[in-house]
């Protein structure tokens, strides 16, 4: 049995179903992100694990023990809150020591463990400061130290980086991941930021409307999304509605308004309404007439490491990302050919409604 096990978890608020039959298994030491748009039930799920929300149905097991009915204070989980929720009237040291004090750990050991944890988050010199005297990033580290010092069974992170500046956020992502690896603490991160989830997690659990849409390693989820929701939520994609016309030799032919897309899969029967999707970075700009599709460059955006092109085609707008190779040979208004290899085309069942 896995270390953390959510079994058929349901949460209803009146008629509203916030979380619908959630099953998730997390291994010891694993870092799993619950990713989804706001209102998808990810925070409610975290709150149920933490014990602040009682599940309507289902159970939660940690290390084989059923904790569904155990009080939050007895679960031994470390939680980092979105607002950090530091105790403003206590020094950094007292904030971190609070959990140990509640566990009746004697003063000498308490002091040692607080010092250790504070130096782990590089706040060794800040023990006697108060939260108000620290920057957002430093407060974040205090919150992390406070959650880690109690050596929790599971570390729960509730959008912990959303209040930080982009630059600090990236640094903290790397650092948080490194600390998690060092300590080997099983971690659940709730976030709506797909790049954060991909950068930090062993596995991503994408949630939509209270349900798990897909649980996979970041690379797999990105390259082989299970449905159009995951496709569009994880990164950007060009999605077109089409009809499945022909199946042969392990490939399917999808017709999108007269343009044929060949996909290397045969998972749906003929005449199914499907979506085809292709990632912007998988499309190449080629000379006119040499590609699979023609288009006109509507806009061109320079982002340093790469260019983003918006291209008008007869099947709709297509976004293409190409690396900045130091050359600038395409201008806005130019006609261009578009090409891609069939391996990169993903075929998904069209969501109805």
């Amino acid at each position, binding site marked *: 049995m896995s270390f953390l096990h959510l079994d058929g978890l349901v949460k209803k608020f009146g008629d509203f179903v916030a979380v619908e039959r959630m099953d998730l298994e997390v291994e010891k030491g694993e870092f799993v992100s619950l990713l989804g748009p706001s209102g998808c039930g990810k925070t409610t799920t975290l709150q149920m694990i933490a014990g602040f929300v009682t599940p309507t149905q289902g159970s939660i097991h940690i290390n084989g023990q059923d904790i569904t009915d155990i009080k939050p*204070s007895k679960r031994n989980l470390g939680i980092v809150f979105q607002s950090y929720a*530091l105790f403003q009237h206590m020094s950094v040291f007292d904030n971190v020591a609070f959990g140990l004090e*509640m566990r009746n750990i004697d003063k000498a050991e308490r002091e040692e463990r607080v010092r250790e944890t504070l130096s782990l988050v590089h706040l060794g010199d800040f023990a006697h400061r108060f939260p108000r005297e620290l920057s957002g990033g430093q407060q974040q580290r205090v919150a992390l130290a406070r959650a880690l010092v*109690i050596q929790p069974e599971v570390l729960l992170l509730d959008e912990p980086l959303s209040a930080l500046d982009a630059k600090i956020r990236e640094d903290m992502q790397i650092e948080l991941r490194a600390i998690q690896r060092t300590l080997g603490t099983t971690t659940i991160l709730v976030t709506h930021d797909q790049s954060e989830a991909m950068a930090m997690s062993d596995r991503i659990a994408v949630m939509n409307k209270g349900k798990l849409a897909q649980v996979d390693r970041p690379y797999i989820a990105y390259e082989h999304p299970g449905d159009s929701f995951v496709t569009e939520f994880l990164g950007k994609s060009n999605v077109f509605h089409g009809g499945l016309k022909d199946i042969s030799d392990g490939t399917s032919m999808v017709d999108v308004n007269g343009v044929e897309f060949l996909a290397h899969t045969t998972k749906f029967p003929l005449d199914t309404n499907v979506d085809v999707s292709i990632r912007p970075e998988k499309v190449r700009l080629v000379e006119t007439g040499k590609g699979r599709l023609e288009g006109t460059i509507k806009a061109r955006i320079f982002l340093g490491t790469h260019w983003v092109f918006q291209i008008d085609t007869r099947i709709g707008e297509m976004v293409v990302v190409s690396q900045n190779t130091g050359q600038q040979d395409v201008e806005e208004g130019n006609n261009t050919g578009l090409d891609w290899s069939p391996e990169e085309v993903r075929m998904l069942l069209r969501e109805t409604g």
Partner: protein
Amino acid sequence: MAQARENNIEIRPYLLSTPAMALYVGMFLIPLIMTLMLSFYSYDMTKGGIIEEFTLANYTEVVTDSYFHGIFLRTLSMSVLVTVFCVLLGTPEAYILHRMSSPWKSICMLAILGPLLVSVVVRTLGWAILIGSKGVINQSLMAIGLIDQPIKLMFTTTGVVIALVHVLIPFMVLSVWASLQKLDPQVESAGQSLGASPFTVLRRIVIPEIMPGILSGSVIVFALTASAFATPSILGGRRLKVVATTAYDEYLGSLNWPLGAAIAVLLLIANIIIIMSYNKFIERKYAQAFK
């Protein structure tokens, strides 16, 4: 041109605050200075009333006479009692209110603040009807046989304290409420996740964090009780005198305005000293929470 604009900018704030300043000076500062001057004059009925000569006699009288000591001590103990009860009742009240969900939150808030819309005199008369020896409370208690004799509440310190707590508790609730609004709602969850019981969370986290609100609320309640007039005069009657009613009696009863002024000035000074040293004390103790 540039100079003119600069001048404009300098004058404008003063011009804008002139009406408020005029009101403040005319309605507060001048009467206060006049009262201060009056307190150094003497009074002699045989020589035609107030004599405009400097004397410390009024102050010596108040400071040395045990009659006035009693009144000042009673006022002080009443203020302390009312403040303590307002803290003990108002803080939980504000906390419960804070945790309520709408629409009950707004309804209960209205119930707590509603009395502020009614004149203190009317509210106090209401208490007189309730606690009098022939009042509603005594009549009902006797009717159900819990007591044989009416409980004496009218014209007692207990009665005045009960009514003052009722009159002043909204200030305490509002003050604590304001602190609670600033409290991060996740702080309580954080405390619990670290292993603290709900009671420990209250004691170790919530109360220290809302301490500034409790303390500023108690300063307001203390100051208002110390200078309260209507409630002690109606429920306390002529015998149970406090400083404010004594000053009133000197002015309008004995017509000894200078003595009344001296009493008023001493009350003001005592209030200022107590409140300022209290502030100093709490600012030191809760330096972090105040930043």
